[in-house]
């Protein structure tokens, strides 16, 4: 037990404490100055804004995918079920170069899109695409077990009491999935906000336009502007804590809504 705590402190606690200590070396004015500089604000806006949009897409597409996987039988269902995890398993750098070459102007998808006048690679749209990619598994994997365990009889009761299918889905099934859906959304959002590897290749990395916050941290580090890097990192870390807290709350909410079995 003591060993566990020691190891955890050495590996996780001390490094994180170091980050906060470093940020205390800054005066509040300095800290504020770094955060409200145009480039930092834009990077944070891009990371958080696009992550929110991508997580929303993941929520909608995740529900469609999970519904197909759980409720329907079709050819290749098991394979599709397995490949949902690929964005988890594929190293982010590999995902980054693959998505870039796919969506580049001469790429398999980039070329037809370019004819439509849509440029994906090296624009904010590319960041959005990469964030969608890495967020796919979260909503599917959090909702899937809940949907599988859902009691069939409630649905049948609703239907036999005269509810049409749309009402049954919207008023009976969806409400019991909401905690899991929100958890999946929050996880996808947290992952997309901090994502680095799969985004930087496709992003174009133009300051104020397509530069994500984690990349700005790396740039500041390479310029030896440690204070700047630390200030941005502290903001993102606090955001992570808030998201973890929200997820824990959501999970507790889910447990009180669905009786444990």
């Amino acid at each position, binding site marked *: 037990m003591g060993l566990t705590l020691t190891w955890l402190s050495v590996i996780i606690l001390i490094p994180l404490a170091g*980050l906060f200590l470093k940020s205390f070396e800054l005066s509040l004015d300095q800290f504020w100055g770094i955060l409200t500089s145009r480039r930092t604000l834009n990077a944070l806006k891009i990371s958080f804004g696009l992550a929110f949009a991508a997580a929303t897409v993941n929520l909608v597409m995740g529900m469609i995918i999970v519904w197909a996987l759980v409720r329907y039988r079709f050819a290749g269902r098991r394979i599709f079920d397995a490949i949902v995890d690929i964005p988890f398993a594929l190293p982010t*750098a590999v995902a980054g170069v693959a998505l870039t070459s796919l969506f580049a102007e001469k790429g398999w998808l980039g070329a037809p899109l370019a004819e439509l006048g849509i440029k994906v690679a090296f624009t904010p749209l590319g960041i959005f695409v990469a964030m969608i990619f890495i967020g*796919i598994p979260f909503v599917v994997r959090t909702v899937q077990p809940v949907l599988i365990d859902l009691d069939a009889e409630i649905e049948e009761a609703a239907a036999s009491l005269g509810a049409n299918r749309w009402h049954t889905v919207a008023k009976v099934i969806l409400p019991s999935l909401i905690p899991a859906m929100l958890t999946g959304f929050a996880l996808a959002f947290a992952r997309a906000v901090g994502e680095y590897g799969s985004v930087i290749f496709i992003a174009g990395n133009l300051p104020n336009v397509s530069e994500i916050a*984690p990349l700005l941290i*790396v740039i500041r580090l390479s310029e030896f502007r440690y204070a700047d890097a630390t200030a941005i990192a502290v903001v993102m870390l606090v955001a992570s804590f808030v998201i973890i807290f929200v997820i824990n709350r959501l999970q507790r909410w889910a447990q009180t809504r669905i009786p444990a079995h």
Partner: protein
Amino acid sequence: MNLPQISMSTAREDLRTEPRIIRVVIIAIAATFLTVFVVLPLVVVFAQAFSKGVAAYFSALSEPEALSAIRLTLVVAAISVSLNLVFGVVAAWAIAKFEFRGKTFLITLIDLPFSVSPVISGLVFVLLFGAQGFWGTWLQANDVHILFAVPGIALATIFVTFPFVARALIPLMQEQGTQEEEAAISLGASGLQAFFRVTLPNIKWGVLYGVLLCNARAMGEFGAVSVVSGHIRGETNTMPLLVEILYNEYQFVASFAIASLLAMLALITLVAKTILERHLDEGQLPSD
């Protein structure tokens, strides 16, 4: 798992599904989305890697730089997986079998690396060991190299892969409870004997599952390692870092050749994971 629903009564079935047209549309959307966003990127990796033929592919992989990156990746993965295996098992054991104050905090701490940006995971070690860092001056004075060297890469990798083993084991061990251990101890086994003869055999599939995912992430980690590595060619480049460097130098065949090895690792991991999940579903968990 849900049993296939044999149509005992079609009328009952109809109550729980949608009109055929809606079913087809939903399946089509799901399949198209997964194909575009997941299958195509995977296919493109191999297409690019072999775009100049098989010979070019293998000659790219046998470059000294590629070999040294592969070697470093294996070494770092071996170090971080074995350390996280030991401490993951101990942490899960402490959390699942004992009650103590601050347990929730401990669980949050274990989960933390999952939700922190990999760049920040690297940054914290730069702040500790870098030239301007807390211990930087001492390290320099004593000629100890952590940053831009193998120890730093290993530390960052351990940090980001810490949760996997513990996360895989905690629910499993909680479900199993402490009865079997108590029985073993009341029959005269020592604590260690009870652990090795009773606890460990019960969780072996879970351990394997955690190690598998831990290893995949350890070999593939990019953000955290990129910050602490210093990108010294032939020395501190892991495979994912080499993918980046070669890509930025427009050596696409070489870059995608390395990437294809990592993609194969991901695919093998997924297959093994599916097999292990079946074992975990069957043998390990008592049916609830």
